[in-house]
């Protein structure tokens, strides 16, 4: 313990030095979302501005705080002042903001989005507290507490924020004590099914076997969800400490992180963090004289959704095709190479250090009976404030979508929870509390945390077709109900979206869906029909319109829609004529243009250019053909 005290002291000094920095500190969000929004160019501009003005500042690259729609985010903290945050910063703006703060002590309140910390001197006058912003205020940040605040490449930052305290608490409690504490906390697996974490740990701990294995599931297969990626990118040590705690509890000496190869930055952060752990004695033999030996290896997944399923994941690590096998035996009894094995999701692991640091009783104050604690969600789709959020379990969908997410621009239509395995819920479910049982009762699932919000411009039949097409392609092919059944579902849905559907198709979808659910071997097939079954149940009229009237109200299904020039609006500016790849739009300048539906390939170029570049702005519309016939 003594050598660790030294590590802790030096980490605290480093963190203090940053917080009491004599030079300004500039924080820039460099997670994947920030980078995609252009933060590397902003960073170049910051460096250039500093150099041009001969200014000194510390630049810290941080992870994602959550409001991805505000990226690129840049924060500035002058010595003794609060940290001021600026959103949607383009390079030119970044230069001005840096100069204004550093040269003129002017935080440009109109451009700032919020501030962090205390403001005794009134520097942030006219600026709101960041955590009082509508998107942040209803949130409770436990798992994400460090994301955006510490440098994820610095183990000392993690340690200075009480990181790795929890593993020492675990050593004091002993493995049984840890399992009891997690039972008391009521933690359920965050990977999808919500299985009580303590229960499978106990089975594994009690299973005979010289060696046991602890695996972190970072496959994040739900297409459209990125909670696990953000957590690893923003606070890798939280996940690694969780892995250490879990391994200690079940008595595992071998550890794996199974992570998607599509997440190169997260992999890089983990590799660096593991090296730092080793240097500080958190890996290897007799870790900090606890008698506990453990080491971690990273395995890169090769892009198959089904490999997120635990038995398939094990197969994949063993070098085989990632095919699920029937259980029992459960991996907790016989898993990787026959060893008793536990697989936990990234977020489940990221939660563990918080429970063991603050105690189970503290954790149970969040959430509801049977659904304790918080859950992270990626809130995306047709939503105003898209990003990564963390809320107590039991919060209503309405509060998440409207209070946190700011609602939709066009009227709200539906929300999909649980990704391809989940369901599509209509407006009447907005007051459903987000917990495992309530979502299940509504025909959906909690899943890993994807929330896709849809407005009236989204076609739910097209969405069902999209999900089934995805699961059909990802079906491993081992069992017939899933392999053949999902293909049939896709064929029927394609027919309907093309306007070739018949009324009996809806009955077929229903019975086929139910058969696949009952007959499939693993969770993939057992949940694959959910998007069809829920949309059929809650949006039946929309299916009927496609089948009977060949009408897609949302104007999405391409065979059922057309592009039109609105004569009263067109100014004849010819921008659309220039971008049309097939010459479908014609017309001399200043005269109303003509759009030939036979030549139109519905590529959207004219629609975009009219909205962003043309004089009129809304002279080209996309609408259902049936709408035209009714005129």
């Amino acid at each position: 313990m003594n050598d660790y005290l030294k590590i802790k002291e030096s980490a605290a000094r480093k963190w203090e030095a940053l917080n009491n920095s004599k030079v300004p500190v500039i924080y820039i969000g460099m997670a994947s979302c920030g980078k995609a929004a252009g933060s590397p160019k902003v960073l170049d501009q910051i460096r250039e501005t500093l150099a041009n003005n001969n200014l000194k500042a510390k630049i810290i690259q941080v992870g994602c705080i959550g409001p991805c729609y505000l990226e690129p985010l840049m924060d500035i903290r002058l010595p003794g002042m609060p940290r001021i945050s600026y959103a949607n910063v383009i390079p030119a703006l970044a230069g001005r903001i840096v100069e204004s703060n550093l040269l003129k002590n002017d935080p440009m309140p109109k451009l700032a989005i919020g501030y962090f910390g205390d403001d005794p001197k009134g520097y942030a006058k006219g600026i709101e507290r960041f955590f009082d912003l509508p998107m942040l205020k209803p949130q409770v940040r436990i798992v994400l507490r460090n994301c955006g605040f510490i440098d994820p490449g610095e183990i000392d930052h993690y340690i200075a924020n009480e990181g790795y305290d929890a593993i020492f608490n675990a050593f004091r409690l002993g493995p049984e004590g840890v399992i009891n504490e997690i039972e008391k906390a009521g933690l359920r697996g965050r990977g999808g099914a919500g299985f009580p974490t303590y229960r499978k740990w106990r089975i594994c701990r009690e299973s005979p076997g010289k060696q046991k294995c602890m695996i972190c599931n970072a496959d994040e297969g739900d297409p459209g969800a990125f909670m696990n990626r953000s957590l690893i990118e923003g606070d890798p040590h939280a996940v690694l400490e969780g892995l250490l705690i879990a391994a200690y509890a079940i008595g595992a000496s071998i550890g794996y992180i199974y992570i998607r190869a599509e997440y190169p930055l997260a992999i890089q952060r983990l590799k660096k963090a593991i090296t730092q752990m080793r240097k500080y004695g958190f890996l290897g033999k007799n870790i900090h004289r606890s008698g506990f030996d453990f080491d971690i290896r990273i395995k890169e997944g090769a892009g198959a959704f089904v490999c997120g399923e635990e038995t398939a994941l094990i197969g994949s690590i063993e070098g085989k095709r990632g095919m699920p096998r029937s259980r029992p035996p459960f991996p907790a009894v016989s898993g990787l190479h026959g060893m008793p094995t536990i697989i936990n999701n990234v977020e489940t692991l990221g939660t563990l250090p918080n429970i063991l640091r603050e105690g189970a009783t503290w954790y149970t104050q969040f959430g509801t009976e049977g659904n304790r604690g918080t859950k992270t969600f990626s809130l995306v789709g047709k939503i105003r404030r898209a990003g990564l959020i963390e809320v107590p379990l039991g919060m209503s969908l309405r509060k998440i979508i409207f209070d946190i997410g700011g609602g939709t621009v066009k009227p709200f239509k539906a929300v999909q929870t649980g990704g391809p395995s989940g369901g599509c819920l209509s407006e009447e479910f907005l007051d459903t509390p987000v917990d495992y049982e309530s979502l299940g009762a509504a025909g959906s699932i909690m899943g890993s945390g994807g929330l896709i919000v849809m407005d009236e411009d989204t076609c739910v039949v097209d969405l069902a077709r999209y999900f089934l097409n995805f699961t059909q392609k990802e079906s491993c092919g081992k069992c017939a109900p899933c392999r053949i059944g999902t293909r049939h579902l896709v064929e029927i849905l394609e027919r309907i979206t093309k306007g070739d559907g018949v009324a009996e198709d809806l009955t077929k979808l229903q019975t086929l869906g139910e058969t696949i659910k009952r007959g499939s071997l693993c969770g993939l097939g057992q949940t694959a029909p959910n998007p069809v079954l829920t949309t059929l149940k809650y949006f039946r009229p929309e299916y009927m319109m496609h089948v009977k009237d060949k009408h897609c109200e949302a104007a999405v299904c391409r065979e059922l829609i057309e592009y039109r020039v609105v004569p009263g609006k067109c100014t004849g500016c010819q921008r659309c004529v220039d971008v049309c790849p097939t010459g479908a739009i014609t017309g001399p300048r200043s005269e109303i243009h003509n759009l030939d539906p036979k030549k139109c390939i519905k590529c959207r170029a004219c629609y975009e250019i009219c909205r962003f570049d043309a004089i009129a702005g809304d002279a080209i519309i996309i609408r259902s053909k049936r709408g035209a016939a009714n005129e």
Partner: protein
Amino acid sequence: MGKRGAKKKDISNILSGFRDDEGNLIPILQKIQKKLGFISEDSVRQTARYLRISENQIFGVASFYSQFRFNEPGRNSIKVCLGTACHVQGGQILSEAVERDLGILPGQTTEDMRYDYEQVACLGCCALAPVIQINDDIYSRMTVIRLKETMDKYE
């Protein structure tokens, strides 16, 4: 703009970095793909000999995972995201535009080797959908019009 470096065909030093244990098949294939840019028939033959398993078994495993490709990549790689968030924001229209512009289908490479093209399920930037990736650069909130300009920047 990043381009792929010169390729060397020899993979024996990749193989010798691993024990001849079947469990290493996927990491070996990942290393081969990193080096050659794809899984060549020749590399499958050599790997089969090294691990003492059949070529068929290797193709069976490799074709199961979407990460592996079997034809030579172009100088640039374009990936269009068709994850859910990108789908509801029009990702499909972007992929059609790429196909029209390049005249190829997903998994193929243009004849002049300028572009290879793939569809992917989620690049992890869903909040900024629709998203495409060219080489290591990710572009968010993409439109059909900007797509063409962006693609023209890569030679």
